[in-house]
């Protein structure tokens, strides 16, 4: 299957068409900075290397260890297990990453979303290849996606419609967390895209076999 993801294009829940088809450019290029190997890991970064390859986000952030050691716990708290369900968080992460045109985050979180129980069709809808309103039947999940679209678009305040939609299904603390999840995802999207971080071979082969590359 061909790569069919969007580069950044503001999309709101009121947009007429919610599907786009754009191929990733230069997928095989090297990352923009060296990814530090375990033997090069600065002292404050070593705990994040475990026994070997910590993944490209850590290996890139390790260049500035004092940033890594505060960013990683934050990223873990924002994107990892929390009061929100795993599935809900992956809705936000995959959707925002697709809107931001982040190849690395879309590919990596497609695999995570599969693990979190999302179907292939749902993932394709989050990735803008299908209209999510035709794929997601639940009002709460549609509200999450609409909220994610508004946060990712960043065109001033979220519309009253998106706000009311979320409020009908989520408490205030959940609204805060959904928004932080979207914001943290955007930060990683920019990092991974600008630095052209490589998707792991394991993820690429899994996505190939699932027809989701």
């Amino acid at each position, binding site marked *: 299957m061909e790569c069919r993801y969007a580069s950044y294009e503001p999309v709101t829940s009121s947009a007429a068409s919610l599907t786009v088809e754009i191929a990733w450019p230069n997928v095989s290029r090297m990352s923009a900075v060296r990814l530090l190997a375990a033997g090069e890991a*600065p002292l*404050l970064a070593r705990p994040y290397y475990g026994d070997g390859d910590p993944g490209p986000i850590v290996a890139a952030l390790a260049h500035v*260890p*004092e940033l890594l050691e505060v960013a990683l716990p934050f990223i873990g708290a924002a994107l990892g297990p929390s009061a929100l369900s795993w599935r809900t968080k992956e809705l936000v992460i995959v959707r925002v990453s697709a809107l931001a045109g982040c190849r690395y985050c879309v590919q990596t979180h497609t695999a995570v979303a599969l693990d979190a129980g999302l179907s292939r069709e749902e993932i394709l809808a989050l990735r803008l290849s299908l209209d999510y309103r035709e794929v997601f039947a639940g009002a709460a999940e549609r509200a999450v996606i609409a909220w994610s679209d508004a946060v990712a678009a960043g065109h001033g305040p979220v519309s009253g419609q998106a706000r009311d939609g979320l409020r009908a299904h989520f408490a205030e603390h959940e609204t805060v967390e959904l928004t932080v999840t979207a914001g943290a995802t955007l930060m990683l999207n920019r990092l991974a895209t600008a630095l052209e971080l490589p998707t792991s071979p394991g993820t690429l082969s899994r996505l190939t076999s699932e027809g989701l590359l």
Partner: protein
Amino acid sequence: MSAIAEAVAAGRLPGRVWMYADYHCNLACTYCLTESAPGVPRRELGHERMVEIAAEAAELGFTDLGVTGGEPFLLMSLPGTLAEMAEHLPVLVLTNGTLFTPKRLARLEPILGRRVAMQISLDRPDPDANDGMRGPENFGKVVEAIPRLVERGIRVRIATTVESIEEAELDRLCALHRDLGVPDEDHVIRPIVRRGRAVDHGLGVTARQQDLPAELTITTDGAFWSPFGPTVSAGVVDTDLLITRTTRPLGVPAGALLRLVENRPPGDDVALNIR
């Protein structure tokens, strides 16, 4: 008393802060940790920053300053910088000792009578053996310079960096430094550390973090665990002993260093006698 001052006073943290004044050098020794040579990127810390670090180090509770490179005395303004730094804390400056022509000796005026000592490299008691690793005429220039410095009242330490040395040869080297006016307590012998250019020549011993005293070391590329940290391999500064990229305020890397030190067993920093 700051946490740093307490740790230094209690002997848990070394009191010296090192600075890499520059990375270029008039020599290109085979065991050079920093791949220094005349044409390499200079990475100069700069007068203002060096004096600022000296002031911050004193304020935090460090007790001594060290200046290394590259060859620091390639920087024409260095004596003035050292003199200003010495207003805050005593300074030890490492030099290859080959640049002290009469004209350059006259330029040392700002440090005379100040708390500035020099550490000069001298590896062997014979010109041929010494110069093999350090370059032609090194020995002659150094033995010429040391008495000139000593007679100006500058305290000179001699650093001998070797893979190994026979007892008889060491005896001759010690006789030589005494002749030059340098007492035994100011002669240090240390192993070659296998980093930088020493790797290319298969020289030296591998130094792990725990083999090296935790002496805060500031460079243009960030703060490191030890002056043996910001070495250069194939033109790139090594990161394995990097602490933080942030060096201003100095409390940021100093605090991170203290945190690292306190997480390790005490007394494990002297295994190679690298000082």
